[in-house]
């Protein structure tokens, strides 16, 4: 008996936690508390995915959001290390009231649509492999191959962009053009080196040694 309603109970529990965590992110003033609340919210959503038997998406949500992104948040928060005074007093500004009003009106518009969307597939719901890694892999490498591959280009571009912006010294240590390189090769084989130049070079080396 209890097993029949267990998914419902879990759903409402985690949905409440997800919404509560999100609200807490908005209302708490201490950034650390906000980050912790975000973890609660994100993990609850991951558990909701599990309840929908979307295992892969659930695990990805845990690893990417709770694992990587929130850690980055916390890293930045600790780096800034804001004091209580710097945070300022939490006041109710007109802007915040407007934001809350906007959020509520969006909810009012969207809610009826969300209820009407629930439609079972004519074939009697998803198959047994639904939501697993294999099934997601099939989609990624079959139907959505191009978006998937484009993501790799996107990440490559972002990586190059990051290196360009952040690297301290962009000019490579060894500078040579193709022609420079050929000349250097010729120089090493002492084909093109003129006698005077050779002398000057030897003289210079000698001068340094003294």
């Amino acid at each position: 008996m209890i097993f029949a309603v267990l998914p419902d109970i879990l759903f409402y529990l985690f949905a409440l936690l997800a919404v509560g965590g999100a609200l807490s992110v908005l209302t708490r003033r201490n950034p650390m508390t906000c980050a912790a609340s975000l973890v609660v919210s994100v993990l609850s959503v991951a558990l909701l995915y599990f309840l929908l038997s979307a295992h892969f998406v659930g695990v990805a949500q845990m690893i990417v959001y709770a694992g990587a992104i929130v850690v980055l948040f916390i890293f930045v928060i600790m780096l800034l290390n804001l004091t209580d005074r710097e945070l300022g007093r939490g006041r109710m500004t007109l802007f915040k009231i407007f934001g809350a009003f906007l959020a509520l009106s969006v909810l009012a518009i969207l809610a009826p649509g969300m209820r009407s969307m629930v439609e079972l597939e004519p074939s009697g719901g998803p198959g047994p492999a639904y939501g697993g890694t294999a099934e997601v892999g099939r989609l990624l490498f079959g139907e959505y191959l191009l978006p998937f591959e484009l993501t790799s280009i996107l990440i490559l571009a972002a990586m190059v962009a990051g290196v360009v912006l952040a690297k301290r010294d962009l000019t490579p240590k060894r500078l040579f053009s193709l022609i420079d390189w050929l000349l250097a090769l010729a120089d090493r084989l002492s084909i093109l080196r003129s006698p005077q130049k050779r002398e000057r070079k030897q003289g210079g080396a000698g001068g340094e040694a003294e």
Partner: protein
Amino acid sequence: MNFETAVANLGFRDLAGISPALNLILAGIAILALDAILPMRSKLLSAWIALLALAGSLFASLHRLAVGADISAFNHAVRMDPFANAFSAIICLASTLAVLSAPKYLKLREVHLAEYYALILFSVSGMVLFGASQDLLMMFLALETMSIPVYCLVGFTRTNVYSTEASMKYFLIGAFAAGFLVYGIALLYGAAGTVRIEDLAVGLDRAPGLFYSGMALLLVGFLFKIGAVPFHMWTPDAYEGAPTPVTTFMAEAVKAAPFGGMLKVLFVGFGFEEAMQVWQPVLIGIAVLTMTVGNLIALVQDDVKRMMGYSSIAHSGYILVGVAAAAELHSTDALAAVLYYLFIYVLMNAGTFGVLILFSSKDKDANHLDDLVGLGRERPWAAALMTVFLLSLTGIPPLGGFFGKFYIFSYAIQAGMIPLVVIAILNSVVSAYYYLKVIGAMYFREPEDGARAVFYFEGYSVFLIAMLWLSAAGVVYWGIQSETPLLLAEQATASLFKPAP
């Protein structure tokens, strides 16, 4: 569709289908690899590879456009129809001009890196796929592939505070806009149960609230990208702070590309009567605001780059007039006028920034109006070219800019939108003031201390000169011969409503 059929369908045909984009991606990777294996003092080889790749994509797109090829690839993720090919051609042309303007300027600024060309190529490949996307997921990824390299390019002169500031601003606002876009896509997926653009209409009956919210958010995301008022705040800052060749790239390619996806979503996804009645009046309002605000603020600018930023906002407004007219008339020919306008806009903008690059020196840009005083006497050819571009931007016949506006406005009159056209023409008159102010500075103002103004061609390079003359020739020739590009554009837009093969 199950896995086996999905994979069996993929093959060489799909790769050939997206070859204009694939070619650019491969060239970008080749540039990066070459620079890592064989670092060279001169980065001209990278520039040449980029130019070759862009020219290849340009001619491939033009060829496909001319023969009317219509290819769906990768399980209908993209469709290289004449519409996508036309946008691909415009964007590749714009990027070619932008790459031509870059080498010397970057060398002067000591940031001439191979990464510059690779990032441009990645960005352009995103743009090409953006106009070809058949579903919103693909569209979003293509848009990000297009935007992320540009955020970096804006901050490419890293020691320059303004450049870094502009990059940061552009990045934050761009990420914000991307958030709108994703939220909109999620809501539309919730409403329609699919992300395929041509099936979005289903969502209206199933969940109107979700559908309209999704549509609004998607529209906001696009309007951010094209810099329409009230989502224009980033444009002048990013234009002013970015290195001038990057501004050139932003003002042409990054400007034109979002229109490809936007037109597709508006006319294919939301092209039915009920939705059109909602977005078309909104677009008219935004067009009026965009033109007026852009032109009025441009009036008081003394920095030519910043002024061109506001001018580009105003031009977005003119283009939106054309989009609204096409929606009113249900005519693909009116959309062709929009494409023609984008084509000419690319040419005339490239030239204007090109002249600014020509006189940039090692430590200073020649961006201020005062920097151009006396140019007409000292460097008559450069001043003459600049005059051609500025007159075209104003819309003086027989230059391309005039015909671009003429076609758009005449379709708007056909659609019965007389007040809108009156506002647009008044705006053109206002814009004449600030474009002519630059011409006035070049020809009719004397340096204040009475000395002769000195202009060195420090930014001179064969590439840049080629770019200036090409765009000037284009503005004049394709202005007088406007029939040919217009005919191609009409073929292109006609394919928008044909079912995918």
